């Protein structure tokens, strides 16, 4: 660099000593994280897309087989179960969870001790899903607590965990685990609505329903949208609760309890007799990722359009 260009650069605001110093460390400060993240996160992501078109056991070199894995997925009952259970969690559980969280949030805002309650219902979110599953199983078991409680009222034991019901028990548990988290997120969003909106609406003689309908609801679309995106990303991670709750004697849960993450584990190294079908598991993971991306894009569009209508 010649001294002439140096002079020109120094003359600009960007060439302040501080900015130049920052530029000098930009590379070295960023490099370790960026390199590790690229090699062990983004490259594996890309590789999964490639591997989904191959036959691969994870050890030897993958062999190209076109779209066969995807063709197979369409007829694989285990994958169908896993995929539809994930959708069930995403939408069925999600709608219930959001209505409950939003209602709790609104009520909590008017209750005494709301900080305390909010802190308390957050608890299940920060402990191990396996631990909660152990408790949940003890609660609903045939000899479990709920039936013991019913028995003392003279009511017969109910088979809470019969196959048709078991996944519903999981759905309820997942709602329970996540409610506190989403109440807190929604609360933070609604707290940001400027108070004078309400003050002026009150002066205009509105009732509380009108204030809710025309201030709280439209102004929380933003945070509801973000929370929905978080939930979408979160549902595909649900794994250990189901494994610990429904798995038995070292076997994986039956496939009608599977989710997307369970499929990847079950098709590769999981269970008492592993299958090692890495290629097909990658295809399953890719389908899940694509579904997540689609849902996120739709959610973003819906929530941003509704905000514009304001």
């Amino acid at each position, binding site marked *: 660099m010649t001294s002439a260009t140096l002079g020109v650069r120094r003359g600009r605001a960007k060439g302040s000593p501080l900015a130049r110093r920052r530029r000098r460390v930009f590379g070295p*400060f960023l490099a370790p994280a960026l390199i*590790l993240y690229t090699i*062990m996160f983004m490259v594996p*992501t890309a590789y999964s897309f490639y591997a989904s078109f191959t036959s691969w056991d*994870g050890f030897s070199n993958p062999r190209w087989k076109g779209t066969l894995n995807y063709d197979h997925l369409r007829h694989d009952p285990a994958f169908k179960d896993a995929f539809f259970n994930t959708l069930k969690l995403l939408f069925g559980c999600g709608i219930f969870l959001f209505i409950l969280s939003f209602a709790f949030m609104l009520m909590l805002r008017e209750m005494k001790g709301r900080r305390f309650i909010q802190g308390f219902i957050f608890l299940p979110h920060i402990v191990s899903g396996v631990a909660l599953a152990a408790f949940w199983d003890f609660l609903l078991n045939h000899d479990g607590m709920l039936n013991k409680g019913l028995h003392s009222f003279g009511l017969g034991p109910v088979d809470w965990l019969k196959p048709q019901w078991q996944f519903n028990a999981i759905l309820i548990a997942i709602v329970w685990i996540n409610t506190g988290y989403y109440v807190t997120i929604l609360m933070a969003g609604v707290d940001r609505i400027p108070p004078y909106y309400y003050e002026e609406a009150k002066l205009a003689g509105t009732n509380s329903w009108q204030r809710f309908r025309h201030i709280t609801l439209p102004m929380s679309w933003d945070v509801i949208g973000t929370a929905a995106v*978080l939930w979408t990303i979160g549902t595909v991670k649900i794994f*250990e609760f189901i494994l610990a709750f429904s798995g038995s004697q070292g076997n994986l849960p039956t496939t009608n309890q599977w989710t997307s993450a369970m499929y990847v*584990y079950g098709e590769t190294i999981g269970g008492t007799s592993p299958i090692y079908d*890495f290629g097909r598991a990658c295809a399953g993971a890719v389908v899940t990722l694509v579904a997540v991306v689609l849902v996120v894009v739709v959610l973003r569009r819906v929530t941003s359009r509704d905000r514009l209508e304001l």
Partner: protein
Amino acid sequence: MSTATTGSRAESAAQDPDTPAAAPAGRRRVPWARLPGAALIWLFVAFCAFTFLFILLSSLKSSYNVLNHPFRLPTELKFSNWSKAWHDGGFGPAFVNSVLVVVFAAAGTVLLASPAAYVLGRNQNRLSGGVSMYFVLGLGIPMQIIVLPLYSIMAKMHLIDNLAGLIVLYIVVNLPFTVYLLMSFFASLPGELEEAAALDGVGPGMTFWRIMLPLAKGGLMTALTLVAIACWNETFLALMFLQTNDNFTLPLALVNFLTQQQFTGEDFGVMFAGVSIAVLPMLALYAWLGRRITEGLTLGAGK
């Protein structure tokens, strides 16, 4: 709406639940109209409290009493459940493994993420914007998409069933969130001190180390805590990458214990002692740093 001017007002309203902002509706309405809702919330709170009390109390009861008198308080305190869980149930070694993994993974993640977050948060240009987006992208990619190629890489490096290998994986998967969290933290710090340091001729590395890091202490603590919680409870990767009991972390020890119980007959007292060993450290951490944890975990949701 200009958030800059109203932000502080909204925030101060948020601190105090009795301001008009926090109670916009229905203050003067008949209180019993809200009763069903309040009852439902208290029921929910009671269930959460019951869950954790039940786990802790049952860990001190005999298996017979846990099963047959679940709602009764323990008559005698059976601490032997805890020593059985610790020594025979595999929870002792698993606890040590979990602590090791959590300490190294949390420290490693923050060590790598904070310089990156510093330069990304304080440089506002196209390049840093693009790199930030690149990190944020990782927040949306589920674990199952990266885990199989990683398995292959780790197998080639003989890092399967190896705690050091698991620590590296935990650092990697926690990087996107930690960079994102710390980035907004560094961006919010005042620039004057940094400028003064530059004018005084303090080198950029020193400026970061001696001036910016201490200023960001709160954010670093939050990041450490959140990564620690995530790693303490993490099960999917641990299950994929650990194989022998000696290397198991607590969630795996618990899964393993639950499985073995189904073969050898069940001791619920010991089981809940094991559950307590996995849960109590998190409860303690939450009691200590509660606000920091909830705020960190929900950060960015409103943006």
